[in-house]
């Protein structure tokens, strides 16, 4: 009898726990106006990468994140909040950025995030601030020349959890096995230790990796178009408008081109002049 009671109580409580947790999961966001709050605190909190050279990389010396996206985020913050506006940065990875945005830990994501229709169901995007394309990074002298060479049994492609490049592999090389690592540093380390033949993601990120790892090169050109957008929560129309007009101002003032040249000017495999705005 006691056992039966215990069993029943276990089942009921587990169900209750599940209900509570799933109720939490579906609770609507506190739709606070980001612009109003940002003006009050004089700060915009950005989710940026810390493991991606050229875009956002942790500088071991200073403990600061540095890169094109970080600089652009600072410029946009100053356009919205004025010259004294502060940009705060929170490190994100491809798998943590969406929950962090929804939860309100960050106001906006500027973390090599491609504008895709599926994502647009969950978040809103600014207009594209960088036009990337998916490519491959391989060891110099590798027999892999383009994405078609990977479409065979036994080929292993490395990618990052939560990036849309791994989904594209299924489209372009359906026979290849895909290993999804937790961030780019891990994926690069896995490529070096031979866990896969190629690492796939957007060309800008790969170019940064090949700068740091001279034995590795980009091959096959871009096989997709990946326009990067600033992701923000739904229903933040004012914030989105502000971001777009700030981006326009940054572009018109020539600051955008200066940043592009600063970060991509000397990178092999990136034609920054084609990307000037």
């Amino acid at each position, binding site marked *: 009898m006691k056992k039966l009671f215990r069993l029943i109580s276990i089942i009921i409580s587990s169900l209750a726990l599940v209900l509570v947790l799933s109720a939490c999961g579906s609770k609507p966001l506190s739709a606070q106006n980001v612009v109003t709050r940002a003006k009050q605190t004089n700060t915009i909190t950005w989710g940026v990468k810390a*493991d991606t050279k050229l875009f956002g990389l942790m500088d071991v010396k200073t403990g600061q994140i540095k890169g094109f996206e970080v600089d652009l985020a600072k410029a946009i913050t100053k356009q919205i909040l004025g010259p004294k506006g502060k940009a705060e940065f929170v490190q994100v990875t491809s798998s943590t950025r969406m929950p962090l945005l929804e939860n309100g830990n960050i106001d906006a994501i500027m973390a090599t995030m491609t504008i895709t229709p599926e994502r647009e169901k969950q978040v809103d995007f600014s207009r594209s601030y960088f036009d990337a394309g998916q490519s491959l990074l391989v060891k110099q002298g590798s027999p892999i020349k383009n994405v078609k060479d990977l479409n065979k049994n036994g080929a292993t492609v490395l990618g990052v959890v939560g990036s849309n490049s791994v989904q594209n592999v299924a489209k372009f090389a359906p026979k290849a096995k895909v290993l999804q690592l937790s961030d780019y*540093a*891990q994926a690069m380390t896995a490529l070096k230790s031979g866990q896969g033949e190629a690492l796939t993601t957007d060309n800008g990120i790969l170019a940064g990796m090949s700068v740091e790892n001279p034995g590795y090169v980009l091959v096959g050109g871009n096989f997709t178009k990946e326009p990067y957008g600033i992701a923000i929560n739904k229903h933040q129309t004012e914030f989105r408008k502000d971001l777009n007009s700030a981006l326009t101002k940054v572009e018109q003032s020539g600051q955008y081109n200066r940043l592009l040249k600063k970060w991509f000017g000397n990178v092999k495999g990136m034609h920054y002049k084609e990307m000037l705005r």
Partner: protein
Amino acid sequence: MKDFIDAYSWINMRYLFQGLGITVIVSIASIAGSYVIGALLGIIRYVNIRFISPIVGLVIDIIRNLPLLLIIFFTYFGLPNLGFRPSSIWATIIAMIVFESTMIAEIVRSGIQAVDPGQMEGARANGLTYAQAMQHIILPQAMKKMIPALVSQFISLIKDTSLATIIVLPDLMHNAQIVYGQNSTYILPMFLMLAIMYFVVCYALSLVSRSLERRLN
């Protein structure tokens, strides 16, 4: 050899020590929090209060049978739904306290159970109240029995903070990954240093516990 000298440059080592600092701070906060809450939960479970103890017991059983990684996700991604947005450091500390206090509750419960029940009867017969007997007679003895289990749990806690790299806690593991992610010749030296640093911290704790045990006996 040159790889090792370069890898252990002052800049890299300073970055690793910063990570070690975070690991230690998070560990100390979690140990303190989970010890207090765990002991409380363990006692609640032992004294068998009607309705409360079975429910507490069930919650404990569910939490302690989940992977810590999942608890970390729940705190980091789930708590904001309740209106609290923790940083990765707070999320780790909270997750650690939630998870470890259930483990400690079990240790405390079985520690109390291991004390001869005759002790309680004797104390009550001598006019002590239940709470007095618990506080002055049972708990001190139980504590002595629990020390080895508690300490190995705390050591697990320190080691498990490394899992929080998944929510970008800037701890020792994470900082080492950042360093070797930027230069592949640093991979082996970094792993060696990681092993040494974690070993020193954990082993020091186990030495302290051993001397504590000796002094109590």
